[in-house]
């Protein structure tokens, strides 16, 4: 089990009702975190439309997560 701080943005934050939480998760990759928290951020968005950052660095869904990491879950972006 890893202790991970998960931060939700925009639609994910509204769906979760909180901006961040620290969870104990069995997770190897960023994708594992996305799926483990899917019920909380309530998104039907496919993984490929979303983005992830780990400790304020853009990451891929295959990126490994370590105990103590902060994982930022981004719903589909829409700048401009």
């Amino acid at each position, binding site marked *: 089990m890893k202790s991970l701080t998960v931060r939700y*943005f*925009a*639609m994910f934050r*509204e769906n979760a009702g909180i901006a961040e939480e620290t969870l104990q998760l069995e997770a190897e990759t960023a994708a594992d975190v996305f799926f483990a928290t899917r019920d909380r951020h309530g998104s039907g*968005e496919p993984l490929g*439309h979303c*983005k992830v*950052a780990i400790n*304020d660095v*853009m990451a891929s869904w295959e990126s490994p997560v370590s105990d103590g990491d902060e994982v*930022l879950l*981004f*719903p*589909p*972006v*829409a*700048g*401009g």
Partner: protein
Amino acid sequence: MKSCCFRRSPGADLIRIADTAIDPDALRRQLFDPAAGAYCGFEGWIRNLNEGETVLRLEYEVYKPLAVSEGEKVLAEAAEKFPHLHAQCVHREGLLEIGDCAVWVGVSSPHRDEAFQACRYIIDQVKVRLPIWKKEFYASGDSGWVNCERCAQH
């Protein structure tokens, strides 16, 4: 990889997130260079219609630390691909009204082809890569987060 043959002032290529109105005229002046023969500017304006719904106003949420670092990457990539003199990008956050400028990109270069191409590259990448989200408020009273499938072509 082409190297850039023009001098580049340090800090001239810049991404900024602004919580007050964008002033395109003041911004374009910052790109002036006596060696520049061409300037291309792009502005994204808040329009009153999206996917058939009447939009009253719009709120941008920006995760600044990564919006800035990712924007800097985009500007650096543009400079590699389309050597130019200066480029800047400013994106708004917070509540915007119809007609407000949500994003501005400006590029100056010796010749126009690089100016157009660099400007287009920057806005295209900014729209799909920066952690920025927009929530539209409709005349119907509803509101909704715009997702990239719907806004990709805007």
